[in-house]
């Protein structure tokens, strides 16, 4: 039937960093519609997917289909600041080209 969206969109704002360093193991995600860290508690622990396309189509191990789409899974670990940004850690660090891109925050 009609496709359903069961995730919240988020923008990859950058990596966790300090004045002089960047820590690529943690990405920062601006969750759409989230204005403060209090509401951000809803998303703690929720799974996050960074979906991207590769040049070669690969076989999806679960469905068996060939697809260009690839995913890097992660989870929301904690809120970041007071304006609706959230920290997320992925199974492998996100590549720099993901910055500014969209990420899917699932509801589970």
């Amino acid at each position: 039937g009609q496709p359903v969206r069961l995730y919240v969109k988020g923008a990859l704002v950058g990596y966790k960093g300090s004045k002089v360093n960047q820590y690529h193991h943690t990405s920062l995600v601006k969750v759409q519609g989230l204005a403060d860290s209090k509401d951000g508690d809803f998303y703690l622990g929720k799974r996050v997917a960074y979906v991207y396309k590769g040049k070669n189509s690969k076989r999806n191990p679960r469905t068996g289909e060939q697809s260009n789409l690839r995913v890097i899974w992660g989870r929301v670990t904690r809120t970041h600041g007071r304006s609706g940004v959230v920290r997320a850690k992925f199974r492998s660090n996100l590549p720099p080209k993901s910055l500014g891109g969209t990420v899917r925050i699932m509801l589970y």
Partner: protein
Amino acid sequence: THTEEEENKMARQRNREIVPGVNRFSRSQMYKRSGRKYLKNKKETPKTEKPVRKASRFYSVDNISKPLKAVHVHKPTALRRSIRPGTVLIVLTGPYRGNHVVFLKQLESGLLLVTGPYAFNGVPLRRINQVHVIATSTKVDISGVSLDSVKDELFIKPKTKAPKKKTEAGFFKNEQKKEKTGVSDEFKKLQKEVDSKIVAAAKKTDSLLPAYLRSKFSLSKGQYPHLMNF
């Protein structure tokens, strides 16, 4: 961290050891508590058979360490307070994602047993993990439905081992062997049995409930789950 046996024993004991050598209740206090004070024949003691311990014939020289007793008791996952029999759930993963389904009961494995009902949205009797579900506040009265026969075993398909050798003759043989594993008639019967009552209950609860169960949940622009009441 105690076995059931140990717990029962502890529950029956009137006294307990605070520190080795120091008990909670003194001898005179125990005399009163055990009821010995009120016994007519105070010399009588309850007869307990002590197990006769035979001296063992073999003592090992080496210190053989025994593995610790496994005291783990399997309990199904704690069910969220928002999920109760009859609650309408939103499925988040799997082929039926977005569908509204009716929660029936929690199976022994901890998984939730749900049904569409099949007539409404094509979701059959199915198991789903609590984690992959959002509970809504909508409820259907399923008190009339008997679910005792539905258990985990019903959903576990026996694994058919793929043959290892690939010979030409075997190749053709396998093509013949592949049977379509559809849904058994018993399962369909069970589905109908369970669903008929839920469909009736849904229509009774609210005139819009059948349409609600037929619909799918989806987020659209401007809708944010952290601002929603489900």
